């Protein structure tokens, strides 16, 4: 039986290039399987991903919505950004300053056992203008 700790060394990530013009999701070079799996197993991470998949959220909004401390949320968000599962954007405030907000980029996560090795693939959402229009229109 494979030791879970060795998964990262046994696994290989796929780096197929998706056709962005026809497919809403894309795959890029992935973080380690163990890194992504560990992140996804975390309850706070699941809540952060769920919340940021609908609307861009700031760390304080996430802390409030996920019922977690700002420190915890901040740490998880940084890990998600490093793993490229969440993207940072800026949102203008009424006073002229900007807030950092976060948007989930994860679309799906797939693990396959092929020829004695675990392969994993993280498909990422390629949000386009149609998604932005739908998101904005829903807010009215």
């Amino acid at each position, binding site marked *: 039986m494979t030791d879970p700790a060795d998964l990262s060394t046994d696994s290989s990530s796929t780096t197929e290039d998706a056709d962005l013009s026809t497919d809403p999701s894309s795959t890029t070079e992935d973080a380690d399987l163990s890194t992504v799996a560990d992140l996804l197993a975390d309850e706070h991470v699941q809540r952060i991903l769920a919340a940021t998949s609908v609307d861009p959220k700031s760390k304080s909004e996430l802390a409030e919505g996920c019922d977690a401390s700002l420190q915890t949320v901040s740490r998880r968000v940084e890990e998600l950004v490093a793993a490229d599962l969440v993207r940072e954007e800026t949102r203008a405030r009424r006073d002229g300053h900007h807030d950092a907000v976060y948007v989930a980029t994860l679309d799906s996560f797939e693990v396959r056992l092929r020829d004695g090795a675990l392969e994993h693939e993280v498909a990422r959402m390629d949000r386009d*203008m*149609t*998604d932005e229009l*739908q998101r904005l*229109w*829903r807010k009215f």
Partner: protein
Amino acid sequence: MAPLLPYAVVELATLALAAGSAVVGLFIAMLALRGVLRDRSRQMLFLSGGMILLFGAAYFTALLGSALVRFHVISLLQQNVVLLAVRTLQFTGLCAIAYSLVIDE
């Protein structure tokens, strides 16, 4: 009194801006249509329908009306019927856009 701008310039600018409005409006309609096809969104269905009526159908009807008047197919009085059709298309389009705003998805 001499006109502020030559008539030809005014006519050309009006035509260009009308065509530009139709292009931009139909571009937004196309984005909304992609939302309909992708997510079967009713909100996007009414938005795209409204934009097509407001900018596409109304523009081409007005254009057709002008062409018919210019080539003496219809009289200036009959042009009012075309104008009524344009206003009807615009009103229906606006109603569809307004409805898309109140749909709860």
